[in-house]
């Protein structure tokens, strides 16, 4: 048949023009005022083209000369452009650098949004108080070197949707009459002239604390964010002829805290040890989805969506059946609930009838946890002793669930595709104690608790041990510095997760499908040894 060759080009142009006027003034070293006003305008454009042909007699010219091919494939080209115009104003006022206030307002206009709602308005206010600059605080100076209280409130906007998302776009599609290709043109998207900015209102209160001449630094922030008018592809009933539509739907809240502790534990001539510990907890919840109370994000072909977006639950909550092993002959005689519409037999999965109606239906699917962790933490350390230095970085996430879609896929019995070795332990008359459901001609890949796993982990992401040769030695090779080191990445991972990498997020461009493992390249464990020479 001959080979297939294709060559493409992408040209992207963008420019940004920022214009700001700033006025800075100080009165008697007491009142500090900074006023800024301006506007920015951004333009970006991309153009791409792909030419392909096939039926090459050989691959000597590869894609460099498509005319060696026997036949051309329809060429493709595409172009998009978008514009973002903004007006901004900001006032900073400080009294003696003790009391500070910042007020700002911006108006952003995005070409990507609907004709009726191009512009969004985003004000913010921030107040801070440097307590350690107060006279009455001077007596604590020995212990408390820095103390600052911060409060901010404001709005931000998001218009990151593909260009032309609000237009009634048409797309080409082909047919033949009299053996000749004709181009048909049909709608692929409904107009949504009301498509507008997704807006996040954010409230934050924080403290910065420095103790003992800043040897101990503590930063604490508590926040509440509410995002409204979410830009979501809302699934449509298929009988409309459209599968989904980009709309502003509903609201989501995020609240949590972040605590950072950065310390110089030991500081002496030969021995220093510094460490930073960060811990953060976030709680995410869908508050509103417009008229409906839930929807399933569109699942890839052949799959049932493992996640639901539902009011009251975190975005992308896993939704499926609880199971309790396999059906036994005794279960069937007793008449335990079985899947409606299929004749379930001994050795099939035993689903739990959550509704208690005596049947297993989709109504029995329920919350199986989400990819949102209870908390995340990291701990980094730098130790040096004489000429040695050691650093390591530990990171962890706790309480999050993962959906092992790859394992689900590999446990589907097939005759022609690779399958998981777990299938060897499937139920059959010769293996009546098997724990995996029996092989059938028509396995339905149901979302069950079997594939929802604890995704908690702690990982030694990096550890490095180095030795700096003393100047007496490094000078012999005329080096200012001579250092040898060994380091390892991803050396140790502690987790119960059975997949390759608990940090997996297959659909990382889709917030509604977090924590799904459909097979990614595993994190590599890397060992490095090196020499640094500085001349």
């Amino acid at each position, binding site marked *: 048949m001959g080979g297939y060759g294709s060559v493409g080009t992408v040209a992207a142009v963008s420019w940004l*023009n920022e*214009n700001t006027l700033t006025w800075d003034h100080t009165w008697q070293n007491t009142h500090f005022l900074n006023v800024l006003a301006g*506007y920015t*305008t951004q333009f970006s454009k991309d153009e791409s083209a792909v030419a392909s042909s*096939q039926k090459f007699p050989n691959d000597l010219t590869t894609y460099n000369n498509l005319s060696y091919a026997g036949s051309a*494939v329809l060429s493709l080209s*595409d*172009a*998009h452009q*978008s*514009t973002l115009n903004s007006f901004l104003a900001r006032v900073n006022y400080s009294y003696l650098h003790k009391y500070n206030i910042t007020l700002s307002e911006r108006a952003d206009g995005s*070409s*990507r949004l609907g004709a009726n709602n191009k512009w969004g308005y985003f004000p913010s206010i921030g107040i801070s108080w440097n307590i350690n600059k107060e006279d009455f605080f001077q007596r604590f100076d020995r212990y408390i070197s820095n103390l600052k209280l911060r409060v901010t409130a404001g709005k931000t906007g998001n218009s990151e949707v593909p*260009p*032309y998302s609000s*237009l*009634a*776009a*048409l*797309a080409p*599609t*082909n*047919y*033949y*009459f*009299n*053996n000749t290709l*004709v181009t*048909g*043109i*049909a*709608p*692929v998207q409904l*107009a949504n002239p009301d498509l507008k900015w997704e807006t996040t209102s954010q409230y934050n209160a924080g403290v910065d604390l420095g103790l003992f001449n800043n040897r101990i630094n503590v930063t604490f922030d508590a926040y509440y964010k509410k995002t409204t008018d979410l830009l979501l592809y809302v*699934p*449509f*009933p*298929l*009988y*409309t*002829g*459209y*599968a989904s*539509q980009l709309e502003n739907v509903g609201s989501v809240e995020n609240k949590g805290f972040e605590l950072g502790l950065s310390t110089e534990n030991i500081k002496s001539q030969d021995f220093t040890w510094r460490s930073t510990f960060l811990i953060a907890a976030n709680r995410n919840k869908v508050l509103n989805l*417009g*008229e*409906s109370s839930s*929807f*399933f994000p569109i699942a890839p*072909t*052949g799959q*049932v969506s493992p996640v639901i977006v539902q009011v009251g639950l975190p975005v992308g909550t896993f939704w499926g059946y609880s199971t309790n092993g396999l059906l036994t002959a005794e279960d069937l005689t007793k008449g335990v609930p079985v899947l409606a519409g*299929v*004749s379930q037999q001994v050795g099939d999965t035993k689903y739990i009838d959550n509704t208690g109606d005596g049947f297993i239906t*989709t109504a029995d699917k329920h919350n199986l946890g989400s990819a949102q962790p209870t908390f995340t933490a990291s701990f980094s350390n730098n130790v040096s002793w004489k000429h040695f230095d050691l650093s390591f970085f530990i990171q962890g996430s706790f309480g999050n669930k993962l959906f092992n879609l790859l394992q689900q896929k590999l446990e589907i019995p097939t005759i*022609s*595709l690779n399958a998981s070795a777990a299938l060897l332990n499937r139920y059959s008359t010769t293996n009546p104690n098997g724990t995996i459901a029996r092989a059938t*001609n*028509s396995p*339905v890949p149901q979302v069950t608790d079997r594939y929802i796993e604890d995704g908690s982990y702690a990982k030694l992401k990096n550890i490095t041990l180095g030795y700096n040769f003393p100047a007496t030695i490094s000078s012999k090779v005329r080096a200012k510095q001579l250092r040898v080191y060994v380091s390892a990445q991803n050396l140790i991972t502690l987790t119960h997760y059975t997949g390759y990498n608990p940090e997996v997020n297959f659909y990382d461009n889709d917030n509604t499908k977090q924590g799904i493992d459909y097979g990614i390249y595993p994190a590599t464990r890397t060992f490095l040894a090196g020499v640094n020479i500085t001349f």
Partner: protein
Amino acid sequence: MKRIIYGVVAAGLLLSCNKLTEDPASVTVAGQFYKTPADALAAVSAVYSTLNSDPAGDFPIYGRNLNLLTCNGGDELVFSPSNTNPDVRALGTTTYVPANDRVRKIWQQHYYGISRANVAVDNVAGMSIDTTLRERLVREARFVRALLYFNLVRLFGDVPLVLHDPTTVDVNNLKTGRTSKDSVYQQIVADLKEGFNLPKSYSGADIGRATSGAAHALLAKVYVTRRDWPNALAELQKVITAGTFTNATGGYGYNLFANFKDAFQKATKNGVEHVFSVQFETNLGAKNSTQFISSGSFSSFNPAVYPGDIPADSTVYQLFDASDTRRGVTFFTTLLNTSTGQTINFGAPRWNKFIDYSVSPLTSQAQSGLNTPVIRYADVLLLYAETLNELNGGPTTDAYTAINKVRTRAGIANLTTGLSQTAFRDSVFHERRKEFILEGNRWFDLSRRGGSYLFDALKKFPAKTGAALKDTLYPIPQVEIDLAGLTQNPGW
């Protein structure tokens, strides 16, 4: 200060040039379209294209997807060892559930087509272009819409009757219930009656479009499905070539090909027997050739490599007498590999009907250019035999003549004379089974007989013992129940 003012003015110019209004260079939008005759033609070509292509590159309706429900779901196929999609295997083993991905897909594809037809009907009808062209194009769109609704109502029973493009993006206002089967059929009949005014035939670049003959024939099939025998007869008489039967007035010149194989060859496309076919053409890499149905039939000279579709079991092959020329067209057991000169014996029969013998090498079925017949004249003749038998309490001479024309072309003897109404009815269905095997007809025939007919036919296969009465209709796709609250069919 002056410099500041100049700066502001210069930057202001940039800002005012950088407009927020989108004027896409790479996408057509609705306001620019539906203006010229070429636009009207393109809008209607898009309606037809839902028959031979899928927007996501999946099997098109008439390029295997409908077959998965009407052949695998019937008694022609079970599944092939090479079927990796469990939902495909579920259809072959009557173990599918409402969440079956193929059931959802066929529903979605039909409504894609209906949506495009609605858009074309509503927009083209209002265009100020040549009246003859405008009216023809609207009727063509309505013909395709009728075909799609006819499939849907037979597969699912009551279905939402959508006739216009949504005017809102508010999901709540898009909800609609299922429309009664009778109302859906009323619309189908109205759309097809409009099709009576379509041209009788086309020439040149328009060959392949819906004709008035296709409208009459499809309407006849609708009436037969509805057991509206008098109306079915009236429509059939308008299609059957005048002079070949008493009361036949058809002026289309339809006839059977002398060779059965010609109904499925590239060289004889859109021939004398083809009343309406979905148009395909060898199309390198563009994924809308009949590749899926053709390579589902044959993909390798290695007998250990199974194609996508294989006959349910040996009984399917044994339906045919050795003298029946349809057997050799429908199946192969051995094949000559022209590049090696070897004849390969495949042992068990495999599907031959949709192999495009014009592609070379033969294994390149992905480049098939065969059409998929939707209605052949053989169908018209067998519907005529069935209708006469039902109307007259038993077979008439013309009923025998009609079925025997199909049998004669196949090279088998005339049907035994003097059959009872029941025996003749069974003979017609048996003939239809052999004639249209793998043409996406069988499940419709099984289900329209009603009662336990479908269920009884399926039960004969060990893999389909789970079949039940509820299988006479497919389940409404689960996603439509979840999203729009549609009710489910009984038993599901």
